[in-house]
């Protein structure tokens, strides 16, 4: 039997076909990963059962899944804004860390003796999130400015600035902001400065609602507003956009600020909702995985949100599976990566169909 790819007359666009192909990709990815279970004489069936059960079918676990998905979503939304405007930004990791740093800075100022020590906790949180978003926006805005004004390479600059942010946080938690103790981390913020948990019995914090709200706002901006239209036009074809009187450079600057702001906000939310202190290794690739969720979500807001939850579930469920079965975490990471690759590969099936042809028997 042979198979070949044949171009479809019209590409598949219906939601159901996308869901079906995505499910197929997940199943194939899990089947491939299942092979890796065999040397450990572990049952893939049980492993995956524990993965999915923990990630999506236990209240506490699903709470964790949504907590993990929160920053992924926001980085994903930022990716949509920047990339659709033609600004291929890879610096979300840096923005997220800088936002976390900014948020922590405000929180530390609210400790006893700080300048914000007499401010109401809710206001401190609000200032902290706003300051985190601002710093994230400026961090990305600097990359945008270097690209737009001097023609710098946005990819290279953003990646280098990621390192700058990573080591800046390392420096702060190891030096100036370090709390007495074994770990390089800052003092823990008092409980009244934590984002409230919104579902009892889970760790799901109010930051998730902020992420959902930001998704709605970004959707309105991109799909309904003039600014969004002009950003999308700038990204699709800068020459046409300029011809249409759109100030491409200004729109790209705005997109950079929005994208960086979202990532910075995500960073501050992670501090106030999850860790409650600044520590080394805080982000660990969230700024990159968020880009992947946007790609998996085909650059749409709902798609990105769903992809973020699925990816969050894989992480949470994978950790649980590792704890329960004792399998090395590398297996889980391989399964994750295979699923992502296969999901991206289904893109081909939207425009092509697989044709099986059997050799004719006489």
């Amino acid at each position, binding site marked *: 039997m042979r198979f070949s790819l044949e171009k479809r*007359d019209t590409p598949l666009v219906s939601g159901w076909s996308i869901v079906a192909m995505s499910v197929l990709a997940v199943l194939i990815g899990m089947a491939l990963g299942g092979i890796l279970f065999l040397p450990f004489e572990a049952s893939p069936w049980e492993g995956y059962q524990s993965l999915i059960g923990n990630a999506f079918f236990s209240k506490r676990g699903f709470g964790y899944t949504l907590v993990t998905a929160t920053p992924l979503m926001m980085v994903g939304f930022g990716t949509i804004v920047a990339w659709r405007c033609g600004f291929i930004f890879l610096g979300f990791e840096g923005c997220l860390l800088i936002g976390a740093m900014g948020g922590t800075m405000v929180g530390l100022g609210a400790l006893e003796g700080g300048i914000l020590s007499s401010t109401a906790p809710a206001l401190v949180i609000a200032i902290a999130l706003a300051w985190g978003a601002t710093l994230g926006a400026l961090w990305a805005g600097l990359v945008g400015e270097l690209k737009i004004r001097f023609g710098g390479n946005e990819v290279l600059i953003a990646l280098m600035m990621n390192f700058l942010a990573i080591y800046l946080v390392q420096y702060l938690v190891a030096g100036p902001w370090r709390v007495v103790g074994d770990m390089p981390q800052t003092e823990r913020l008092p409980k009244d400065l934590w984002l409230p948990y919104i579902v009892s019995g889970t760790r799901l914090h109010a930051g998730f609602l902020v992420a959902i709200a930001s998704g709605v706002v970004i959707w*309105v901006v991109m799909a*309904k*507003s*003039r*600014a969004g*239209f*002009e950003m*999308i*036009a700038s990204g*699709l*074809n800068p*020459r*046409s*956009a*300029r*011809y*249409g*009187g*759109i*100030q491409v450079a200004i729109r790209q600057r705005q997109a950079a600020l929005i994208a960086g702001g979202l990532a910075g906000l995500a960073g501050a939310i992670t501090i106030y909702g999850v860790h409650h202190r600044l520590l080394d290794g805080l982000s660990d690739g969230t700024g990159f995985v968020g880009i992947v969720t946007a790609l998996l979500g085909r650059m749409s807001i709902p798609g990105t949100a769903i992809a973020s939850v699925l990816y969050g579930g894989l992480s949470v469920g994978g950790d649980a599976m590792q704890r329960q079965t004792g399998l090395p975490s590398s297996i889980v990471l391989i399964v994750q990566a295979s699923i992502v690759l296969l999901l991206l590969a289904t893109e081909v099936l939207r425009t092509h169909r697989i044709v099986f042809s059997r050799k004719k028997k006489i």
Partner: protein
Amino acid sequence: MTNAITLLRMQKITKRFGASVLANDKIDFDLHAGEVVALLGENGAGKSTLMNILYGLYEPTEGKIEFSGVQTSFRDPAQAIEHGIGMIHQEFMLVEPFTVAENLLMGTTTLPAGAENLNTARQLIREISTEYGLQVDPDARIEDLSVGQRQRVEILKLLFRHAKLLILDEPTAVLTPQETDALFEVLNRLRSNGHAIVIVTHKMHEVMAISDRVAVMRAGQMVATVNTSESTEAELVRLMVGRDLDLSVDRTEPKGRKRALELVQLQVEARVGAKATPPVALVLRHGEVLGIAGVDGNGQTELIETIFGLKEAQSGSITLEGREITNLTTVERRAAGIGYVPPDRRGVGALVTLSIEDNVILGASKEFTQFGLLNRSLARIAADNVIDRFGVKTPDAEFISGNLSGGNLQKLVLGREVSRDPKVLLIEQPTRGLDVGAIELVWGEIIEQRNQGAAVLLASTELEEILALSDRIAVMFEGEIMGIVPRDKATTPILGAMMAGRQLDEVAV
């Protein structure tokens, strides 16, 4: 001619793309040694498909090809060239920093007889060049050659590889009238030497001037093959389009004639690597079409983009109805009443991945905005207006603009610009690549705008178009305006000489 040897016989050639597109429907096409055949047809008639099948780029769905009496089917162009079939595309395939000889030797796996090394090859090039009057120096670098010379290098390349059948795709699109004459001279020599030549074209006067026979295609079918001497332009157009056409232009005498646009000592930014050009002075009045003739790439686009604000003026001023607009942005100039139909409608004039409605928003997004949000119902009404008024053939305004045919997309771009009632309308290459039916409509609309009092600046490389539409004609050469001639004084020789770089006072008697 009819008793000459049949070099090529294509029989019942059918080509389908997918299930629905029938690009060639049982085409018969013969070619004899020593004749020039014009392959005439509108866009989408199937001319290119047929030639690409012959050249080995496509495989026919059905039908057979006999070349020199042997049944053949070429897998790829390399095989076609080996058998003596050569094609010259509109874009030349030459390596600019290399010399003519280097370009000719490049890619030849087996060197032609008599060209064992670069020296003998140079000798051979000189011989062929002299024999056919090509006047090509084998040691000249391509980048130093004019467009007409480069085309002759392409011809030389085919002759060097012993091509017996030459296919030329729209060969005169980039040439001045003088260069066109020189090309026809070369083609005549090739014909008398026994070569067979196919010219793919839709320009009627060229068909009449050079061809022995005309093969007319329409909608994938070969509708007629006639001897040129026994036909007329009008008959050929009727065969090509399937109906009578009215390309006559109905102009009313303009009123007012106030100055609409004035360029004073306008210094246009030179292209990278090009030398600075003298400043431009120009007055454009309401109710007139000022044509800018010139070979492509002589500064027309740069001038118009500067007027539109896409390029910054180095010095000098641009005035719209007495108001200086030199420092306004493009969107401000649009709001002030300037519209622009760019030459590259797919790459610049439209956002081809977006809908017709989105494209109607382009350029006036502010007017469709309320409280920061786009008012889609307003945009829909505007889009439906453009579709109705200009007869854009589309299912609805949601349709992706890039899937429109060239003619319909141009109607959309022109319609959008015109629907904003511009005081000054800048138009470049409005009918490039359009078929005759669409040309009729576009020309009609340009004149309609003029008659209603708009000031139209029309840059085109098609002299026919310039002569048909303009009240006055300016000629540009290397960024400089060589002179402005009123329409009744303009003749092809005068304009042609100016297009080749001579000042008006040198050529006018």
